[in-house]
Protein backbone atom coordinates (compact mmCIF):
# COMPACT_ATOMS: atom_id res chain seq x y z
CA UNK A 1 0.00 0.00 0.00
CA UNK A 2 1.31 3.49 -0.86
CA UNK A 3 1.72 5.59 2.25
CA UNK A 4 -0.51 8.63 2.23
CA UNK A 5 2.33 10.85 3.35
CA UNK A 6 5.99 10.12 3.17
CA UNK A 7 8.65 12.53 4.32
CA UNK A 8 12.26 11.69 3.53
CA UNK A 9 15.32 13.25 5.16
CA UNK A 10 13.81 16.69 5.60
CA UNK A 11 16.03 19.54 6.80
CA UNK A 12 15.19 23.16 7.44
CA UNK A 13 17.23 26.10 8.65
CA UNK A 14 16.20 29.57 9.80
CA UNK A 15 19.33 31.57 9.15
CA UNK A 16 21.93 29.46 10.90
CA UNK A 17 19.46 27.81 13.24
CA UNK A 18 18.56 24.24 12.46
CA UNK A 19 14.81 23.91 12.94
CA UNK A 20 14.26 20.45 11.45
CA UNK A 21 17.06 17.91 11.17
CA UNK A 22 16.89 14.84 9.00
CA UNK A 23 13.21 14.28 9.66
CA UNK A 24 11.49 11.27 8.14
CA UNK A 25 7.93 10.13 8.60
CA UNK A 26 5.56 7.67 6.99
CA UNK A 27 1.84 7.96 7.52
CA UNK A 28 -0.38 5.12 6.26
CA UNK A 29 -3.98 5.65 5.12
CA UNK A 30 -6.32 5.61 8.08
CA UNK A 31 -3.64 6.43 10.64
CA UNK A 32 -4.23 8.77 13.52
CA UNK A 33 -0.70 9.95 13.92
CA UNK A 34 0.70 12.21 16.64
CA UNK A 35 3.65 14.56 16.38
CA UNK A 36 4.74 15.75 19.80
CA UNK A 37 7.57 17.58 21.46
CA UNK A 38 8.23 20.69 23.54
CA UNK A 39 7.98 24.28 22.36
CA UNK A 40 10.37 25.13 19.57
CA UNK A 41 10.89 21.49 18.69
CA UNK A 42 10.07 22.19 15.06
CA UNK A 43 6.62 20.60 14.89
CA UNK A 44 4.81 23.51 13.28
CA UNK A 45 7.77 23.98 10.97
CA UNK A 46 7.21 20.43 9.72
CA UNK A 47 3.56 21.31 8.97
CA UNK A 48 4.66 24.46 7.21
CA UNK A 49 7.10 22.50 5.10
CA UNK A 50 4.47 19.92 4.19
CA UNK A 51 1.97 22.60 3.16
CA UNK A 52 4.42 24.67 1.15
CA UNK A 53 4.66 27.70 3.44
CA UNK A 54 8.44 27.47 3.43
CA UNK A 55 10.56 26.39 0.51
CA UNK A 56 12.22 23.05 1.09
CA UNK A 57 15.97 23.11 0.75
CA UNK A 58 16.79 19.48 1.55
CA UNK A 59 14.63 16.37 1.60
CA UNK A 60 11.52 15.30 -0.25
CA UNK A 61 7.84 14.99 0.57
CA UNK A 62 5.45 12.59 -1.15
CA UNK A 63 1.69 12.78 -0.89
CA UNK A 64 -0.13 9.65 -2.08
CA UNK A 65 2.99 8.70 -3.98
CA UNK A 66 3.33 12.05 -5.72
CA UNK A 67 6.33 14.30 -5.13
CA UNK A 68 4.87 17.55 -3.79
CA UNK A 69 8.18 19.00 -2.58
CA UNK A 70 8.21 21.95 -4.97
CA UNK A 71 4.48 22.62 -5.20
CA UNK A 72 2.92 25.87 -4.07
CA UNK A 73 0.46 25.80 -1.17
CA UNK A 74 -2.84 26.08 -3.06
CA UNK A 75 -1.89 23.14 -5.27
CA UNK A 76 -0.89 21.00 -2.30
CA UNK A 77 -4.14 21.77 -0.50
CA UNK A 78 -6.18 21.20 -3.65
CA UNK A 79 -4.56 17.78 -4.00
CA UNK A 80 -6.43 16.62 -0.90
CA UNK A 81 -4.52 17.81 2.12
CA UNK A 82 -6.01 20.21 4.63
CA UNK A 83 -4.74 21.84 7.78
CA UNK A 84 -5.66 23.95 10.77
CA UNK A 85 -3.49 26.43 12.62
CA UNK A 86 -2.00 26.67 16.07
CA UNK A 87 -3.25 30.25 16.39
CA UNK A 88 -6.65 30.19 14.78
CA UNK A 89 -6.47 31.71 11.32
CA UNK A 90 -10.04 32.18 10.22
CA UNK A 91 -11.05 34.97 7.86
CA UNK A 92 -12.32 36.99 10.74
CA UNK A 93 -14.57 39.48 8.98
CA UNK A 94 -16.16 36.90 6.70
CA UNK A 95 -19.18 34.88 7.76
CA UNK A 96 -18.80 31.35 9.09
CA UNK A 97 -20.47 30.11 5.91
CA UNK A 98 -17.99 31.94 3.70
CA UNK A 99 -15.14 30.60 5.78
CA UNK A 100 -16.28 27.02 5.21
CA UNK A 101 -16.92 27.66 1.51
CA UNK A 102 -13.39 28.99 1.12
CA UNK A 103 -12.09 25.61 2.17
CA UNK A 104 -13.51 24.30 -1.11
CA UNK A 105 -12.24 27.23 -3.14
CA UNK A 106 -10.19 25.10 -5.51
CA UNK A 107 -13.12 22.79 -6.08
CA UNK A 108 -15.46 25.47 -7.40
CA UNK A 109 -14.90 24.34 -10.94
CA UNK A 110 -16.17 27.28 -12.93
CA UNK A 111 -14.32 30.00 -14.81
CA UNK A 112 -14.01 33.73 -14.37
CA UNK A 113 -16.59 34.05 -17.11
CA UNK A 114 -19.14 32.08 -15.08
CA UNK A 115 -18.46 34.22 -12.04
CA UNK A 116 -18.90 37.46 -13.99
CA UNK A 117 -22.21 36.44 -15.55
CA UNK A 118 -23.58 34.03 -12.93
CA UNK A 119 -24.15 31.38 -15.60
CA UNK A 120 -26.21 28.25 -14.96
CA UNK A 121 -23.00 26.37 -14.34
CA UNK A 122 -22.09 28.93 -11.68
CA UNK A 123 -25.48 28.47 -10.02
CA UNK A 124 -25.11 24.70 -10.05
CA UNK A 125 -21.64 24.68 -8.53
CA UNK A 126 -22.44 27.33 -5.93
CA UNK A 127 -25.58 25.47 -4.90
CA UNK A 128 -23.74 22.20 -4.53
CA UNK A 129 -21.07 23.70 -2.30
CA UNK A 130 -23.32 25.85 -0.19
CA UNK A 131 -25.44 22.76 0.49
CA UNK A 132 -22.30 20.92 1.55
CA UNK A 133 -21.18 23.88 3.67
CA UNK A 134 -24.50 23.98 5.50
CA UNK A 135 -24.25 20.23 6.12
CA UNK A 136 -20.84 20.74 7.69
CA UNK A 137 -21.99 23.69 9.78
CA UNK A 138 -24.83 21.49 11.03
CA UNK A 139 -22.40 18.65 11.77
CA UNK A 140 -20.37 21.02 13.96
CA UNK A 141 -23.42 22.67 15.55
CA UNK A 142 -22.54 25.97 13.97
CA UNK A 143 -25.61 26.51 11.81
CA UNK A 144 -26.80 29.45 13.87
CA UNK A 145 -23.57 31.28 13.09
CA UNK A 146 -23.79 30.84 9.30
CA UNK A 147 -24.12 34.56 8.66
CA UNK A 148 -22.04 35.72 11.64
CA UNK A 149 -18.54 37.10 11.06
CA UNK A 150 -16.07 34.55 12.34
CA UNK A 151 -14.55 36.96 14.86
CA UNK A 152 -17.78 36.98 16.85
CA UNK A 153 -17.79 33.22 17.47
CA UNK A 154 -16.75 31.87 20.88
CA UNK A 155 -13.20 30.52 21.01
CA UNK A 156 -14.06 26.83 20.96
CA UNK A 157 -16.48 27.34 18.07
CA UNK A 158 -13.78 29.15 16.13
CA UNK A 159 -11.53 26.12 16.54
CA UNK A 160 -14.28 23.83 15.30
CA UNK A 161 -15.13 26.16 12.43
CA UNK A 162 -11.52 25.90 11.33
CA UNK A 163 -11.84 22.10 11.26
CA UNK A 164 -15.09 22.39 9.29
CA UNK A 165 -13.31 24.64 6.80
CA UNK A 166 -10.58 22.06 6.43
CA UNK A 167 -13.06 19.20 5.95
CA UNK A 168 -15.31 20.63 3.26
CA UNK A 169 -12.89 19.72 0.48
CA UNK A 170 -13.07 16.09 1.66
CA UNK A 171 -9.31 15.87 2.20
CA UNK A 172 -7.64 12.51 2.46
CA UNK A 173 -5.13 13.82 5.00
CA UNK A 174 -5.90 16.31 7.74
CA UNK A 175 -3.15 18.14 9.60
CA UNK A 176 -4.28 19.44 12.99
CA UNK A 177 -1.95 21.93 14.66
CA UNK A 178 -2.59 21.83 18.41
CA UNK A 179 -6.38 21.55 18.17
CA UNK A 180 -6.72 21.55 21.97
CA UNK A 181 -4.59 24.65 22.54
CA UNK A 182 -6.23 27.02 24.97
CA UNK A 183 -8.95 24.57 25.94
CA UNK A 184 -9.81 23.44 29.44
CA UNK A 185 -10.09 19.81 30.56
CA UNK A 186 -13.75 19.37 29.59
CA UNK A 187 -13.41 21.09 26.23
CA UNK A 188 -10.34 19.00 25.45
CA UNK A 189 -12.25 15.81 26.22
CA UNK A 190 -15.04 16.88 23.85
CA UNK A 191 -12.44 17.61 21.24
CA UNK A 192 -10.85 14.18 21.60
CA UNK A 193 -14.22 12.58 21.00
CA UNK A 194 -14.90 14.88 18.06
CA UNK A 195 -11.61 14.06 16.37
CA UNK A 196 -12.14 10.35 16.92
CA UNK A 197 -15.63 10.59 15.40
CA UNK A 198 -14.42 12.63 12.45
CA UNK A 199 -11.66 10.15 11.82
CA UNK A 200 -14.23 7.44 11.40
CA UNK A 201 -17.03 9.43 9.80
CA UNK A 202 -14.93 11.01 7.04
CA UNK A 203 -12.53 8.03 6.75
CA UNK A 204 -9.71 10.47 7.35
CA UNK A 205 -6.05 10.12 7.94
CA UNK A 206 -5.00 12.56 10.62
CA UNK A 207 -1.60 13.91 11.53
CA UNK A 208 -1.82 15.86 14.73
CA UNK A 209 0.52 18.13 16.66
CA UNK A 210 -0.26 18.30 20.33
CA UNK A 211 1.10 19.55 23.58
CA UNK A 212 -1.33 17.92 25.95
CA UNK A 213 -0.08 14.40 26.55
CA UNK A 214 -3.55 13.23 27.49
CA UNK A 215 -4.94 14.13 24.08
CA UNK A 216 -2.19 12.28 22.28
CA UNK A 217 -2.35 9.22 24.50
CA UNK A 218 -6.11 8.99 24.07
CA UNK A 219 -6.19 9.50 20.35
CA UNK A 220 -3.13 8.42 18.48
CA UNK A 221 -2.08 5.01 17.29
CA UNK A 222 1.41 6.18 16.34
CA UNK A 223 3.53 8.94 17.81
CA UNK A 224 6.74 10.67 16.75
CA UNK A 225 8.65 12.79 19.26
CA UNK A 226 10.67 15.79 18.11
CA UNK A 227 13.19 17.75 20.13
CA UNK A 228 15.32 20.57 18.74
CA UNK A 229 14.42 19.48 15.24
CA UNK A 230 15.52 15.90 15.81
CA UNK A 231 13.37 12.81 15.96
CA UNK A 232 14.12 11.13 19.27
CA UNK A 233 11.49 8.42 19.35
CA UNK A 234 8.77 6.82 17.27
CA UNK A 235 6.17 4.16 18.06
CA UNK A 236 2.82 3.51 19.74
CA UNK A 237 1.98 5.88 22.62
CA UNK A 238 2.47 3.33 25.42
CA UNK A 239 5.96 2.59 24.19
CA UNK A 240 6.79 6.26 23.79
CA UNK A 241 5.77 6.95 27.35
CA UNK A 242 8.38 4.47 28.53
CA UNK A 243 11.05 5.41 25.99
CA UNK A 244 14.29 6.22 27.82
CA UNK A 245 15.29 9.12 25.60
CA UNK A 246 11.88 10.71 25.90
CA UNK A 247 11.93 10.31 29.66
CA UNK A 248 15.43 11.68 29.83
CA UNK A 249 14.75 14.57 27.50
CA UNK A 250 11.62 15.77 29.23
CA UNK A 251 10.32 14.03 32.26
CA UNK A 252 13.67 13.18 33.82
CA UNK A 253 15.18 16.54 33.19
CA UNK A 254 12.34 18.31 34.88
CA UNK A 255 11.80 15.68 37.61
CA UNK A 256 8.14 15.82 36.82
CA UNK A 257 5.94 12.93 35.79
CA UNK A 258 2.69 14.77 35.44
CA UNK A 259 0.49 13.94 32.53
CA UNK A 260 1.19 17.22 30.83
CA UNK A 261 4.45 17.98 29.13
CA UNK A 262 6.48 20.04 31.54
CA UNK A 263 7.36 22.44 28.79
CA UNK A 264 3.81 23.03 27.62
CA UNK A 265 3.82 26.60 28.70
CA UNK A 266 2.13 28.27 25.79
CA UNK A 267 -1.18 30.05 26.39
Amino acid at each position, binding site marked *: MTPILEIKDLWHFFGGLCAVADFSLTVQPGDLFGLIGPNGAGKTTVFNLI*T*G*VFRISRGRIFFRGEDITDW*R*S*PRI*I*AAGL*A*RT*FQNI*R*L*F*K*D*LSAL*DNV*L*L*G*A*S*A*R*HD*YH*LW*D*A*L*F*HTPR*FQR*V*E*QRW*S*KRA*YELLARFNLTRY*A*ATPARHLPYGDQRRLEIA*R*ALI*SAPSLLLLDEPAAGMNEAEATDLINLIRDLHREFSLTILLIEHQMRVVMNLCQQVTVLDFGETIAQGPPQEIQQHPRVLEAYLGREGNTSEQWPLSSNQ
Partner: protein
Amino acid sequence: MQKRVTILAGVAFLLCLAWVLPASGWLNPYLVMIFMYVGINMILTLSLNLVNGYLGEFSVGHAGFMAIGAYVSAILTVWVLPRPWAPWLFPLVLVAGGLVTALAGLVVAFPSFRTRGDYLAIVTLAFNMIVKSILENLEILGGPRGFLGMPRLTNLPWVVAWVLITLFLCRNLVYSNVGRGLMAIREDELAANLTSVDTRRLKIYAFLISAFFAGIAGGLFAHLLQFINPRSFSILKSTDMLVMVYLGGVGSLTGSLLGAAIFTLLLEALRPLGLWRWVVGPLLLILLMIFRPHGIMGFREAPWLRTVSREP
Protein backbone atom coordinates in the same frame (compact mmCIF):
# COMPACT_ATOMS: atom_id res chain seq x y z
CA MET B 1 -37.76 35.74 -10.06
CA GLN B 2 -39.72 38.69 -8.71
CA LYS B 3 -36.44 40.38 -7.87
CA ARG B 4 -35.00 39.85 -11.32
CA VAL B 5 -38.02 41.42 -13.02
CA THR B 6 -37.86 44.44 -10.71
CA ILE B 7 -34.18 44.92 -11.46
CA LEU B 8 -34.64 44.60 -15.23
CA ALA B 9 -37.48 47.10 -15.12
CA GLY B 10 -35.32 49.47 -13.09
CA VAL B 11 -32.48 49.19 -15.60
CA ALA B 12 -34.81 49.87 -18.54
CA PHE B 13 -36.31 52.83 -16.71
CA LEU B 14 -32.92 54.33 -15.93
CA LEU B 15 -31.75 54.00 -19.53
CA CYS B 16 -34.96 55.62 -20.83
CA LEU B 17 -34.54 58.42 -18.34
CA ALA B 18 -30.93 58.94 -19.38
CA TRP B 19 -32.07 59.26 -22.96
CA VAL B 20 -35.27 61.28 -22.47
CA LEU B 21 -34.08 63.84 -19.92
CA PRO B 22 -31.32 65.47 -21.99
CA ALA B 23 -33.14 65.00 -25.32
CA SER B 24 -36.30 66.68 -24.09
CA GLY B 25 -34.35 69.57 -22.59
CA TRP B 26 -35.73 69.03 -19.07
CA LEU B 27 -32.22 68.67 -17.81
CA ASN B 28 -29.96 71.53 -18.79
CA PRO B 29 -26.64 70.65 -20.46
CA TYR B 30 -24.65 71.71 -17.40
CA LEU B 31 -26.45 69.20 -15.20
CA VAL B 32 -26.16 66.51 -17.88
CA MET B 33 -22.43 67.14 -17.93
CA ILE B 34 -22.21 66.76 -14.15
CA PHE B 35 -24.22 63.55 -14.21
CA MET B 36 -21.85 62.18 -16.79
CA TYR B 37 -18.91 62.98 -14.53
CA VAL B 38 -20.71 61.28 -11.67
CA GLY B 39 -21.15 58.19 -13.83
CA ILE B 40 -17.53 58.08 -14.96
CA ASN B 41 -16.41 58.51 -11.37
CA MET B 42 -18.73 55.68 -10.31
CA ILE B 43 -17.02 53.34 -12.76
CA LEU B 44 -13.60 54.45 -11.52
CA THR B 45 -14.60 53.99 -7.90
CA LEU B 46 -16.07 50.54 -8.46
CA SER B 47 -12.90 49.61 -10.30
CA LEU B 48 -10.58 50.87 -7.59
CA ASN B 49 -12.70 49.34 -4.84
CA LEU B 50 -12.12 45.93 -6.35
CA VAL B 51 -8.41 46.25 -5.60
CA ASN B 52 -8.42 48.46 -2.52
CA GLY B 53 -11.63 47.26 -0.91
CA TYR B 54 -12.04 43.61 -1.79
CA LEU B 55 -8.49 42.47 -2.50
CA GLY B 56 -7.30 44.73 0.31
CA GLU B 57 -4.27 46.12 -1.48
CA PHE B 58 -3.65 49.84 -1.70
CA SER B 59 -3.43 51.03 -5.28
CA VAL B 60 -2.55 54.71 -5.51
CA GLY B 61 -1.96 54.74 -9.24
CA HIS B 62 -5.29 54.06 -10.87
CA ALA B 63 -5.07 57.22 -12.95
CA GLY B 64 -2.31 55.43 -14.86
CA PHE B 65 -4.83 52.80 -15.98
CA MET B 66 -7.37 55.46 -16.83
CA ALA B 67 -4.76 57.23 -18.96
CA ILE B 68 -4.05 54.12 -21.00
CA GLY B 69 -7.74 53.55 -21.70
CA ALA B 70 -8.21 57.19 -22.62
CA TYR B 71 -5.26 57.37 -25.01
CA VAL B 72 -5.90 54.00 -26.67
CA SER B 73 -9.55 54.74 -27.38
CA ALA B 74 -8.75 58.26 -28.48
CA ILE B 75 -6.11 56.98 -30.92
CA LEU B 76 -8.66 54.53 -32.31
CA THR B 77 -11.31 57.15 -33.00
CA VAL B 78 -8.93 59.82 -34.27
CA TRP B 79 -6.43 57.86 -36.36
CA VAL B 80 -7.81 54.41 -37.05
CA LEU B 81 -11.56 54.46 -37.53
CA PRO B 82 -13.23 56.39 -40.31
CA ARG B 83 -15.09 59.25 -38.68
CA PRO B 84 -18.65 58.22 -39.78
CA TRP B 85 -18.25 54.80 -38.19
CA ALA B 86 -17.06 56.06 -34.85
CA PRO B 87 -20.45 56.52 -33.17
CA TRP B 88 -21.46 52.96 -34.06
CA LEU B 89 -18.23 51.40 -32.99
CA PHE B 90 -17.91 53.44 -29.81
CA PRO B 91 -18.65 50.51 -27.45
CA LEU B 92 -16.03 48.43 -29.25
CA VAL B 93 -13.55 51.28 -29.05
CA LEU B 94 -14.09 51.48 -25.31
CA VAL B 95 -13.76 47.73 -24.89
CA ALA B 96 -10.55 47.78 -26.91
CA GLY B 97 -9.19 50.52 -24.68
CA GLY B 98 -10.28 48.52 -21.65
CA LEU B 99 -8.58 45.37 -22.89
CA VAL B 100 -5.27 47.12 -23.52
CA THR B 101 -5.53 48.65 -20.06
CA ALA B 102 -6.25 45.23 -18.60
CA LEU B 103 -2.97 44.00 -20.09
CA ALA B 104 -1.24 46.91 -18.41
CA GLY B 105 -2.87 45.72 -15.19
CA LEU B 106 -0.56 42.74 -15.36
CA VAL B 107 2.39 45.08 -14.81
CA VAL B 108 1.06 45.62 -11.31
CA ALA B 109 -0.42 42.16 -10.81
CA PHE B 110 2.89 40.33 -11.11
CA PRO B 111 4.79 42.39 -8.54
CA SER B 112 1.83 41.82 -6.22
CA PHE B 113 2.83 38.17 -5.91
CA ARG B 114 5.92 39.13 -4.00
CA THR B 115 5.26 42.52 -2.46
CA ARG B 116 2.28 43.66 -0.50
CA GLY B 117 0.96 46.57 1.50
CA ASP B 118 2.94 49.77 1.39
CA TYR B 119 5.47 48.42 -1.05
CA LEU B 120 2.82 47.39 -3.54
CA ALA B 121 1.24 50.82 -3.08
CA ILE B 122 4.57 52.30 -4.12
CA VAL B 123 4.67 50.01 -7.15
CA THR B 124 1.27 51.32 -8.26
CA LEU B 125 2.43 54.87 -7.61
CA ALA B 126 5.52 54.30 -9.72
CA PHE B 127 3.32 52.81 -12.42
CA ASN B 128 1.19 55.96 -12.47
CA MET B 129 4.23 58.23 -12.66
CA ILE B 130 5.87 56.14 -15.39
CA VAL B 131 2.75 56.12 -17.57
CA LYS B 132 2.43 59.87 -17.21
CA SER B 133 6.11 60.39 -17.92
CA ILE B 134 6.00 58.20 -21.04
CA LEU B 135 2.98 60.10 -22.36
CA GLU B 136 4.74 63.39 -21.73
CA ASN B 137 7.70 62.22 -23.77
CA LEU B 138 5.74 60.76 -26.69
CA GLU B 139 5.75 63.71 -29.04
CA ILE B 140 3.60 61.80 -31.53
CA LEU B 141 0.75 61.89 -28.99
CA GLY B 142 1.24 65.57 -28.37
CA GLY B 143 3.61 65.15 -25.44
CA PRO B 144 2.76 67.38 -22.50
CA ARG B 145 0.41 69.47 -24.66
CA GLY B 146 -2.02 66.59 -25.01
CA PHE B 147 -4.06 64.83 -27.64
CA LEU B 148 -7.22 66.13 -29.24
CA GLY B 149 -9.62 65.71 -32.11
CA MET B 150 -11.86 63.04 -30.63
CA PRO B 151 -15.53 63.29 -31.60
CA ARG B 152 -17.83 63.82 -28.66
CA LEU B 153 -19.23 60.31 -28.47
CA THR B 154 -19.87 60.10 -24.75
CA ASN B 155 -23.44 60.89 -23.79
CA LEU B 156 -25.61 60.24 -20.77
CA PRO B 157 -27.21 56.98 -22.00
CA TRP B 158 -23.79 55.50 -22.72
CA VAL B 159 -22.48 56.54 -19.34
CA VAL B 160 -25.49 55.11 -17.55
CA ALA B 161 -25.23 51.89 -19.54
CA TRP B 162 -21.56 51.48 -18.62
CA VAL B 163 -22.20 52.22 -14.97
CA LEU B 164 -24.85 49.50 -14.98
CA ILE B 165 -22.60 47.03 -16.79
CA THR B 166 -19.75 47.72 -14.36
CA LEU B 167 -22.03 47.39 -11.38
CA PHE B 168 -23.55 44.17 -12.69
CA LEU B 169 -20.20 42.52 -13.36
CA CYS B 170 -18.56 43.72 -10.14
CA ARG B 171 -21.51 42.61 -8.09
CA ASN B 172 -21.52 39.17 -9.71
CA LEU B 173 -17.82 38.87 -9.16
CA VAL B 174 -18.01 39.86 -5.52
CA TYR B 175 -20.68 37.25 -4.81
CA SER B 176 -18.77 34.36 -6.30
CA ASN B 177 -15.91 32.10 -5.41
CA VAL B 178 -13.60 34.73 -6.90
CA GLY B 179 -14.96 37.51 -4.69
CA ARG B 180 -14.80 35.32 -1.59
CA GLY B 181 -11.22 34.44 -2.48
CA LEU B 182 -10.28 38.11 -2.88
CA MET B 183 -11.72 38.91 0.52
CA ALA B 184 -9.90 35.93 2.00
CA ILE B 185 -6.63 37.37 0.66
CA ARG B 186 -7.54 40.68 2.24
CA GLU B 187 -8.17 39.03 5.60
CA ASP B 188 -5.19 36.68 5.69
CA GLU B 189 -3.26 35.87 2.55
CA LEU B 190 -1.31 33.01 4.04
CA ALA B 191 -4.39 31.29 5.37
CA ALA B 192 -6.01 31.81 1.98
CA ASN B 193 -3.15 29.97 0.30
CA LEU B 194 -3.55 27.20 2.85
CA THR B 195 -7.27 26.80 2.22
CA SER B 196 -6.62 26.18 -1.49
CA VAL B 197 -7.41 29.74 -2.64
CA ASP B 198 -5.27 30.28 -5.73
CA THR B 199 -4.11 33.69 -4.60
CA ARG B 200 -1.93 34.42 -7.64
CA ARG B 201 -4.68 33.75 -10.12
CA LEU B 202 -7.15 35.83 -8.12
CA LYS B 203 -4.75 38.76 -7.91
CA ILE B 204 -4.35 38.64 -11.67
CA TYR B 205 -8.15 38.60 -12.05
CA ALA B 206 -8.57 41.52 -9.69
CA PHE B 207 -6.02 43.71 -11.43
CA LEU B 208 -7.21 42.71 -14.92
CA ILE B 209 -10.82 43.53 -14.22
CA SER B 210 -10.09 46.64 -12.20
CA ALA B 211 -7.77 47.96 -14.91
CA PHE B 212 -10.31 47.08 -17.59
CA PHE B 213 -12.99 49.26 -16.03
CA ALA B 214 -10.55 52.08 -15.30
CA GLY B 215 -9.71 51.94 -19.02
CA ILE B 216 -13.40 52.10 -19.95
CA ALA B 217 -13.81 55.13 -17.71
CA GLY B 218 -10.77 56.69 -19.35
CA GLY B 219 -12.30 56.16 -22.79
CA LEU B 220 -15.58 57.75 -21.72
CA PHE B 221 -13.65 60.64 -20.21
CA ALA B 222 -11.60 61.20 -23.38
CA HIS B 223 -14.68 61.29 -25.59
CA LEU B 224 -16.51 63.59 -23.23
CA LEU B 225 -13.77 66.22 -22.93
CA GLN B 226 -12.50 65.69 -26.51
CA PHE B 227 -9.08 66.62 -25.18
CA ILE B 228 -6.70 64.75 -22.92
CA ASN B 229 -3.23 65.54 -21.67
CA PRO B 230 -0.90 63.63 -19.37
CA ARG B 231 -1.57 65.99 -16.50
CA SER B 232 -5.25 64.92 -16.37
CA PHE B 233 -3.94 61.53 -15.21
CA SER B 234 -1.51 62.61 -12.55
CA ILE B 235 -1.32 61.31 -9.04
CA LEU B 236 -3.90 63.96 -8.09
CA LYS B 237 -6.49 62.12 -10.19
CA SER B 238 -5.57 58.91 -8.39
CA THR B 239 -5.98 60.74 -5.12
CA ASP B 240 -9.48 61.82 -6.15
CA MET B 241 -10.36 58.17 -6.78
CA LEU B 242 -8.97 57.12 -3.43
CA VAL B 243 -11.01 59.79 -1.72
CA MET B 244 -14.19 58.60 -3.45
CA VAL B 245 -13.51 54.98 -2.46
CA TYR B 246 -12.78 55.75 1.18
CA LEU B 247 -15.54 58.33 1.42
CA GLY B 248 -18.10 55.80 0.20
CA GLY B 249 -16.56 52.94 2.09
CA VAL B 250 -14.17 50.15 1.18
CA GLY B 251 -15.51 46.75 0.28
CA SER B 252 -18.92 48.09 -0.63
CA LEU B 253 -20.50 48.52 -4.06
CA THR B 254 -23.18 50.80 -2.69
CA GLY B 255 -20.44 52.80 -1.04
CA SER B 256 -18.62 53.19 -4.35
CA LEU B 257 -21.72 54.60 -6.01
CA LEU B 258 -22.41 56.91 -3.07
CA GLY B 259 -18.80 58.02 -2.71
CA ALA B 260 -18.50 58.95 -6.37
CA ALA B 261 -21.83 60.78 -6.39
CA ILE B 262 -21.26 62.70 -3.18
CA PHE B 263 -17.69 63.66 -4.05
CA THR B 264 -18.55 64.90 -7.52
CA LEU B 265 -21.71 66.75 -6.53
CA LEU B 266 -20.16 68.26 -3.41
CA LEU B 267 -17.23 69.69 -5.35
CA GLU B 268 -19.73 71.24 -7.76
CA ALA B 269 -21.83 72.60 -4.94
CA LEU B 270 -18.76 74.19 -3.38
CA ARG B 271 -17.83 75.94 -6.61
CA PRO B 272 -19.00 79.37 -5.38
CA LEU B 273 -16.26 79.23 -2.76
CA GLY B 274 -13.66 79.67 -5.47
CA LEU B 275 -10.16 78.75 -4.34
CA TRP B 276 -11.45 77.96 -0.86
CA ARG B 277 -13.37 74.97 -2.23
CA TRP B 278 -10.09 73.08 -2.33
CA VAL B 279 -9.49 74.00 1.29
CA VAL B 280 -12.93 72.99 2.51
CA GLY B 281 -12.93 69.72 0.55
CA PRO B 282 -9.84 68.21 2.21
CA LEU B 283 -11.02 69.43 5.61
CA LEU B 284 -14.31 67.58 5.18
CA LEU B 285 -12.35 64.49 4.17
CA ILE B 286 -10.19 64.65 7.30
CA LEU B 287 -13.25 65.06 9.50
CA LEU B 288 -14.95 62.13 7.79
CA MET B 289 -11.94 59.91 8.36
CA ILE B 290 -11.76 60.85 12.02
CA PHE B 291 -15.43 60.29 12.72
CA ARG B 292 -16.14 57.48 10.26
CA PRO B 293 -12.84 55.78 9.43
CA HIS B 294 -14.59 53.11 7.36
CA GLY B 295 -16.38 55.64 5.18
CA ILE B 296 -20.12 55.88 4.76
CA MET B 297 -20.85 52.24 3.90
CA GLY B 298 -17.60 50.43 4.83
CA PHE B 299 -18.04 46.66 4.32
CA ARG B 300 -21.83 47.01 4.24
CA GLU B 301 -24.09 46.62 1.28
CA ALA B 302 -27.57 47.82 0.33
CA PRO B 303 -30.01 44.89 0.42
CA TRP B 304 -30.86 45.08 -3.29
CA LEU B 305 -27.24 44.37 -4.17
CA ARG B 306 -26.81 41.39 -1.86
CA THR B 307 -27.52 37.85 -2.93
CA VAL B 308 -30.44 36.08 -1.36
CA SER B 309 -29.53 33.69 1.43
CA ARG B 310 -28.80 30.28 0.03
CA GLU B 311 -29.78 28.28 3.08
CA PRO B 312 -31.55 25.09 1.96
